């Protein structure tokens, strides 16, 4: 159920965000979604691509510091209060959220998809499924992206 996410270390200066994007572009790798966290000194760019191994290889060959982490994709009802209800399930299951960001697409009126970085992804996946939260596997997620 887990999705591989690449985390990239960025210095906080001009051109630092463009460089890895350019490297991936030249390798023909499509970025499906991304999120940027930053402080005054440095940033972390998190992104999801289909072929994470190749993406990691080309980035590292270009001198980028890359770390692979696992996130869970969760379908959230596309209605007011939809995310709150899912988070309530997280809370009941005792699953802590480190950070989250949105998947690029949603099916309007049905569901939006969010990526969650959770403390213990394996344990969290079991607990959340038991609590009725809809997790999306990477195959399905990528199939949606190419549809």
């Amino acid at each position: 159920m887990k999705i591989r996410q690449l985390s990239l270390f960025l210095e906080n200066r001009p051109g630092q965000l463009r460089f890895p994007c350019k490297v991936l572009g030249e390798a023909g790798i499509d970025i499906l979604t991304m999120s940027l966290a930053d402080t005054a000194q440095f940033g972390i760019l998190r992104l999801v691509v289909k072929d994470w191994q190749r993406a990691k290889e080309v980035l590292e060959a270009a001198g980028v510091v890359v770390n692979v982490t696992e996130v869970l994709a969760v379908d959230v009802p596309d209605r007011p209060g939809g995310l709150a209800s899912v988070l309530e399930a997280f809370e009941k299951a005792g699953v802590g959220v480190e950070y989250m960001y949105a998947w690029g697409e949603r099916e309007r009126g049905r569901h939006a998809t969010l990526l969650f970085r959770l403390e213990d992804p394996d344990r969290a996946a079991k607990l959340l499924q038991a609590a009725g939260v809809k997790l999306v596997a990477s195959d399905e997620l990528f199939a949606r992206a190419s549809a």
Partner: protein
Amino acid sequence: MPTPVLESGIFDPAEILPADERRVLQARRLAETVRRARAVPFYRDALGRAGVSSDTIRSVDDVRRLPFTTKDDLRGHYPLGLLAVPRAELARIHGSSGTTGKPTFVAYTRGDLDTWSGLVARFLVAGGLRPDHLVHVAFGYGLFTGGFGLHYGIERVGAAVVPAAGGNTPRQVMLIRDLGAEVLICTPSYALHIAEVARAEGFRPGDLPLRLGHFGGEPWTEEMRVRIERELGIHAFNNYGLSEVIGPGVSGECPHRTGMHVQEDHFLVECVDPDTLAHVPDGEVGELVFTTLTKQAMPVLRYRTRDLAALDRSPCPCGRTGVRMSRVVGRSDDMLIIRGVNVFPSQIEEALLRVEGTAPHYLIEVSRPGSLDEAVVKVEMRPADFRDEMRQLQELHDRIDREIHAVTGVRMTVELVAPNTLERSAGKAQRVLDHRKR
């Protein structure tokens, strides 16, 4: 109340001793120093290897037969392995930053402290200090020789001291104004900072009661002197010293400002090529080497200062007969002086090694955006240390920051940078970029 001696600006008649008389005195004191140094195992061995004993010292030129002493030798005998007297005879210990985490200590007997105060008094009086003056000392009081060294020298002259020490510049301005100090003592860059703060508080140049300044502890330029004199409305004098030799008081300027008069009756100075160790002719820049002639607790033989300067033996109109040294124009090693504190790149290396998970690829960039030095340490991330957590990165950053401060005593800005982004020239990493104007 000024004495006749003080009116002439000469504190000690030894300053105007005829050169031939001084050479006789120096030769006698050099032989005594060699005899005293033999109480130190390190020097006994080194002198034995060089085949020198006090009997073989007949003139000052025999100093060339003595072995050199380096900062590494001091570090190798940490903490007090170079004492020439029993510990019970010590009266004080000072220290300077070592090349790694531990300081280099220097020790003084009661007699050494007395000598030292007299030497500081000499350059202060040469530069206009009089017993009726009030002197504001903004040097740190502590292991650093600046604070206490100047303090007792001022008292020796008979002037009054405000031991303000460092920090809190607006308060320093207030003290100078309210107490009416005529003389300021600190590093030249701090003098400029005081001037800036005074200006920000609405003072115009010359509004403060200051008339004189004695500045040292770091190299500075004539341009800085002009700025300090204009901004504070004072006469600014340069002085030189280093703790390994005694502290401030090794040399200082007279009103003619033709260079700093070396107190030659207490220190023999040589100027050598740092690579070949051969003497360079007067007027040419070389590394200064000092041999103490009167120090009891820790005599040093031919101490290699790593400071680059030139010597001048031409007569000075002030009447002092000793050799003069130019401003220090550079270093023959990689030592940096940041806000008056000696910092070696090896200290940064040690701090980084203490922080588990940082590779020792770094660059120290020093600049002086205003009047005070700023240092940025860029540290390359090692891929293995990077995880997907902001918190972990922040923690790594903060630990490096803390360790650098702990090892060097100086606050520096730490920047984590991507691997292999710091320039390496010919495979060798460049450790320091100093953007300050010399």
